[in-house]
């Protein structure tokens, strides 16, 4: 690998991904662009032929589910986004210097996954111009529509997250601008608009306030507005209930910490940043993940216990489908392999630090992250397949178009992340 000789200064090590380009980078970019183009073709198919190319159908007389993998994907991405900024904001507010190397990774994860959440909604709408109608008729709908509240908070959250990321990067851009070849400097200079070395204290003050605001908004969006899309629907068995707020919020934090563990481990391995991203960081994140996962499992127990004890017939039908019906293989695999076993592993590791394994922590995080996607899918789809009105039970099988678009969001997210790492330092230079 080019640039391996640069071992003298930690700062130069951190700049290595920007200065040197490997073959692996080009291969990764080519694969991701290819995948993105494939999903572009799938989207074009959907745009020209309509949502009929998906497996989604109206509930009731059409025996289908009007929401599917796109909405599951949306909730999953929003969860990662909110938890991501919570981690970053928590590090800044409480000055957890040990975790500082992963702060920007978490911020970037938030910005990119928020974009992918928005894209998933655009796919689900069928026509992107419908988003514009939500803006035009904003004042007519603000009173009743949790979707409008959702749009508002996602806009606010995205704008604040991008600003947060940018403000905290200005100092780093100024630092490494001098170290870059002259021919690249024109690209970075506009980002330093009005920069002066004395602004650090003010930037820190604003960043602190943005961090506080984002944490409050996270509680409102991930623990409020998005769960309200489900929890307020009194006619929808499987969704209605006051527990959805904290349930969603916990899921957001669990998925974000899993995402950060995975990304930090990939970056650590790719750039050989063993000194910068120390195993202690993964140990700490693994312990937090174990605690949050058991809280999430506790919510699942609450959900099922409330239904099974003396729940209404429609709720019981959904619970039956999950626990012993057609969805039980997916549900139990998700629960045992995706949540319980990783929790046990992470808990043992937290109690006996000697058995800590980075590989084990990353595998646990991957299993949990996949399980949370499946959980969101089950939440969205099953409730719609079992309508409260006397319609027959529906069915839903995602088509190649839907899977291609879901894959496309992953490819675009990875592409954006890689391009960012290629252009800007992913670890804060000054503080590291």
């Amino acid at each position: 690998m080019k640039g391996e000789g640069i071992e003298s200064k930690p700062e130069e090590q951190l700049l290595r991904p920007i200065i040197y380009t490997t073959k692996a980078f080009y291969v990764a970019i080519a694969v991701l662009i290819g995948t993105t183009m494939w999903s572009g073709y799938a989207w074009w198919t959907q745009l020209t032929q309509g949502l009929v190319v998906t497996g989604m159908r109206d509930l009731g007389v059409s025996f289908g589910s009007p929401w599917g993998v796109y909405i599951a994907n949306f909730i999953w991405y929003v969860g990662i986004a909110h938890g991501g900024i919570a981690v970053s904001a928590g590090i800044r507010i409480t000055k957890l210097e040990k975790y500082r190397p992963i702060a920007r990774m978490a911020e970037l994860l938030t910005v990119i996954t928020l974009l992918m959440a928005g894209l998933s909604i655009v796919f689900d709408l069928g026509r992107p111009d419908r988003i514009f109608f939500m803006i035009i008729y904003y004042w007519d709908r603000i009173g009743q529509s949790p979707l409008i509240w959702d749009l508002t908070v996602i806009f606010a959250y995205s704008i604040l997250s991008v600003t947060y990321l940018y403000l905290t990067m200005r100092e780093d851009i100024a630092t490494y601008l001098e170290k870059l070849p002259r021919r690249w400097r024109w690209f970075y200079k506009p980002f330093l608009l009005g920069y002066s070395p004395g602004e650090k204290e003010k930037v820190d003050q604003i960043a602190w306030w943005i961090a506080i605001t984002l944490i409050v908004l996270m509680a409102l969006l991930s623990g409020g507005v998005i769960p309200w899309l489900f929890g307020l629907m009194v006619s929808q068995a499987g969704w209605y209930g006051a527990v959805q707020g904290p349930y969603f919020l916990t899921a957001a934090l669990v998925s974000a910490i899993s995402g950060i563990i995975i990304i930090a481990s990939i970056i650590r391995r790719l750039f050989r940043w063993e000194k910068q991203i120390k195993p202690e960081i993964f140990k700490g994140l693994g312990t937090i993940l174990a605690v949050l996962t058991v809280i999430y499992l506790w919510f699942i127990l609450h959900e099922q216990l409330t239904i099974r004890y003396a729940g209404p017939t429609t709720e019981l039908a959904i619970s039956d489908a999950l626990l012993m019906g057609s969805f039980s293989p997916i549900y139990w695999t998700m629960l045992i392999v995706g949540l319980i076993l990783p929790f046990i592993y992470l808990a043992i590791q937290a109690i006996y630090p000697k058995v800590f394994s980075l590989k084990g922590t990353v595998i646990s995080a991957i299993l949990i992250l996949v399980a949370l996607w499946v959980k969101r899918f089950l939440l969205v789809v099953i409730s719609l397949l079992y309508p409260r009105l006397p319609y027959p039970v529906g069915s839903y099988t995602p088509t190649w178009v839907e899977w291609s678009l879901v894959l496309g969001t992953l490819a675009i997210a990875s592409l954006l992340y890689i391009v960012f790492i290629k252009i800007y330092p992913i670890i804060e230079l000054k503080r590291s």
Partner: protein
Amino acid sequence: MTELVTSFIANLFTLNSVAEWYSSTGLIGLVIIFLIIGVPIYILILASIVGQPRNLKVTMIFIAMQILLFILAIIFVWIVGGIVSMAVP
């Protein structure tokens, strides 16, 4: 004025018609957006202006970036929506 406030509060607890229901849920939306969600953002902007240390240039960059990103987001939605409307009528 007192009567107005009293009848307004009373209406919140006696929802006898669709119109009343609309007015009360309409209020919920406004409270959620402009108070619960809005207040942290107002405080943030206020803190950036009056909080110590004061640095007008950084504050202006921060506020201008908020406005710029908001406008860009609307324009982006408008352009993408417009292109798709034209491409796939």
